[in-house]
């Protein structure tokens, strides 16, 4: 293997010693063997053995991939990815306008960031999504579980219970209008208790707890493989107060972003983050921009900004790899996150975006 020694994941002190001793490629290291290596560089035999194991793993991984084996890389052609994406579901938000601009709902395997001023509805959306991810597949959901990481303490269980009850009622109405067996069977397991029991709640009080929780999350997710949504409500809060070293903050945030995208990709789940807003003071005017700085803007794949327009709440899709930028109004009702109702219409006409996999169903008004 002609892999350069500088590109292997070894510690910096070890790498410096290897460079000083004149080793250039991984093959030379493997040829020398642990005893020769420990003699040449002056490290203990155990350390030399460990280093060689790492090198061997890297090189065998390379060889497997060159020979066309699967390995652990996430490599495929664009055609396979397209088929995968088309078969994937979305997590609907019960607000059809928002689902439309997002291209069907919150996408799995991507990081979505929701920014907004205080009180505009970010936590409401998170709670709505934690309930919506559990909708059974026959009703157009992804039938998964949710992980809710709370840093601000704004998770109200009774509110989630209200949202869940409204969602169950909605599904019951659909089941009554279209009498089908799988609907009835799904409804048996889709109840208030089951929804609440499948939301895994973590409370993190400062940034160290948050980082630790995110690093422990892959193990948790491999045990609970049905999780399809990870919500971090308030990623800005622990990083904004009490942080002197700003460059350290940028590094930690970037590392966190990479960790989250790995989680989203490996476990096929959606990651939703909420961010605060801060004021940028310009020459003539000041604007509200998302907090945590410029480099954090690159972390999320999809960015939604919630803002007020007099007394109307608006959502703007600001960054997306596949959808155009647009703005839509939404509202928050006792049932949760909903569309703005046009004035002259009877009650109970929430038109949800049905999953394109299922044949189109028209909801009849009661």
């Amino acid at each position, binding site marked *: 293997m002609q892999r350069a020694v500088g*590109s292997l994941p070894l510690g910096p002190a070890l790498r410096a010693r290897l460079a000083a001793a*004149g080793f250039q490629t991984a093959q030379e290291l493997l040829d020398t063997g642990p005893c020769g290596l420990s003699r040449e560089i002056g490290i203990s035999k155990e350390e030399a053995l460990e280093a060689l194991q790492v090198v061997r793993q890297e090189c065998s991984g390379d060889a497997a991939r060159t020979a066309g084996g699967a390995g652990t890389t996430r490599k495929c052609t664009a055609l396979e990815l397209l088929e995968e994406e088309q078969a994937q579901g979305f997590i609907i938000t019960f607000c059809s306008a928002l689902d439309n601009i997002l291209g069907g709902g919150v996408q799995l395997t991507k990081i979505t960031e929701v920014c907004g001023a205080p009180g505009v509805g970010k936590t409401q959306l998170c709670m709505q999504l934690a309930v919506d991810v559990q909708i059974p597949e026959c009703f157009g959901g992804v039938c998964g579980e949710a992980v809710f990481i709370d840093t601000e303490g704004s998770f109200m269980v009774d509110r989630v219970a209200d949202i869940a009850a409204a969602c169950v009622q909605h599904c019951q109405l659909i089941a009554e209008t279209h009498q089908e067996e799988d609907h009835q069977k799904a409804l048996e397991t889709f109840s208030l208790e089951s929804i609440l029991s499948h939301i895994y709640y973590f409370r993190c009080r400062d940034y160290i707890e948050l980082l630790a929780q995110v690093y422990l999350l892959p193990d948790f997710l491999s045990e609970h493989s049905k999780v399809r949504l990870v919500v971090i409500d308030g990623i800005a809060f622990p990083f904004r107060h009490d942080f002197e070293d700003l*460059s350290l903050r940028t590094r930690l945030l970037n590392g966190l972003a990479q960790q989250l995208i790995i989680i989203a*990709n490996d476990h096929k789940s959606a990651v939703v983050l909420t961010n605060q807003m801060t004021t940028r003071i310009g020459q003539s005017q000041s604007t509200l921009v998302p907090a945590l700085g410029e480099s954090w803007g690159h972390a999320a794949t999809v960015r939604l900004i919630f803002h007020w327009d007099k007394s109307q709440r608006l959502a703007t899709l600001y960054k997306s790899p596949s959808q155009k930028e647009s703005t839509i109004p939404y509202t928050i009702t006792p049932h949760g996150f909903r569309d703005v109702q046009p004035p002259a219409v009877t009650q109970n006409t929430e038109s949800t975006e049905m999953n394109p996999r299922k044949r189109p169903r028209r909801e009849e008004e009661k």
Partner: protein
Amino acid sequence: MVVLRAGLCPGLTEEMIQVLRANGVRTVVDFVSSDLEDVSQKCSLSYKALVAVRRVLLAQFSAFPANGADLYEELKSSTAILPTRSPSLDQLLDSGLYTGEVTELMGAPGSGKTQVCLSIAASVSLGLKQHVLFLDSTGGFTASRLYQMLQAQAEDEEEQLEALQRIQVARVFDVYEMLSALQEVRDRLSQQAVSCTGPLKTVLIDSVSAVIHPLLGGRQSEGLAIMMQLARELKMLAKEFSLAVVVTNQVTRDSSTGLLKPALGRSWSFVPSTRVLLESKGAPWEEVTTRRSASLAKSPRQPTGMQVELDIGNSDVQEPSPATPTEGL
């Protein structure tokens, strides 16, 4: 700094190496630069043998000067220019992407870097029928958007599906994974395995700063070392195998002046030969628009400061229809 080892060249035996090492001559550089008479006296080795070994080592390890005319001929025969199907972008890049060079796209979040990368991949795969490798480190690669772009460029569904198959996507979220992926490309190209790669001409990396940014900064120079290792890999790939390498970079805010500047610092700014800055026209989210302006920040062939307009609209990256590309200096 290659260590002297038995068998490096005929005449260099194990005993010789032990004696030389005892006298402080460990590497090839030490051997070649030392006074051989002195060494032969101290180590009691034959002067003729040492001179012969030195001649062989020099022949093996030194670089040979090349004639400028030969270099030019080689460049003419190995460089290709890949058009990007967007006339204004081609104008900015001096008729297209040059193989053998690293081109960088930088911009704020939402400025269209991923869109431009996708459109380059689509045009190379569909128009030139060549293979493309896309290394995605941000999760921003959406195959359905790529399909949309292909559908706008070609009518035949067969062609679209073939074009999709020619684009290989690897998701690398860590700098070591990225280095392994590049190493794998190098191994495959040097073995000339035609099975899955085919004629690979373009490597797109979106984005390179996402994997390196977490390592930079602080008082550790570790991140800088890895970044330079990655830079070396990219340049070697581009030069040795005549590939066009396109990378995307982020922008950060300069703390002292408040202006936007490219991320990864000064050391990285020497790596790409061409740098294009993408900006969105208009204020943040008050007016929604798909127009972007691309300006040339660094180029070996064109005057910097050239600016063109792009429309990363619904179907394609194209120049906006009524406006003409503006040149500003």
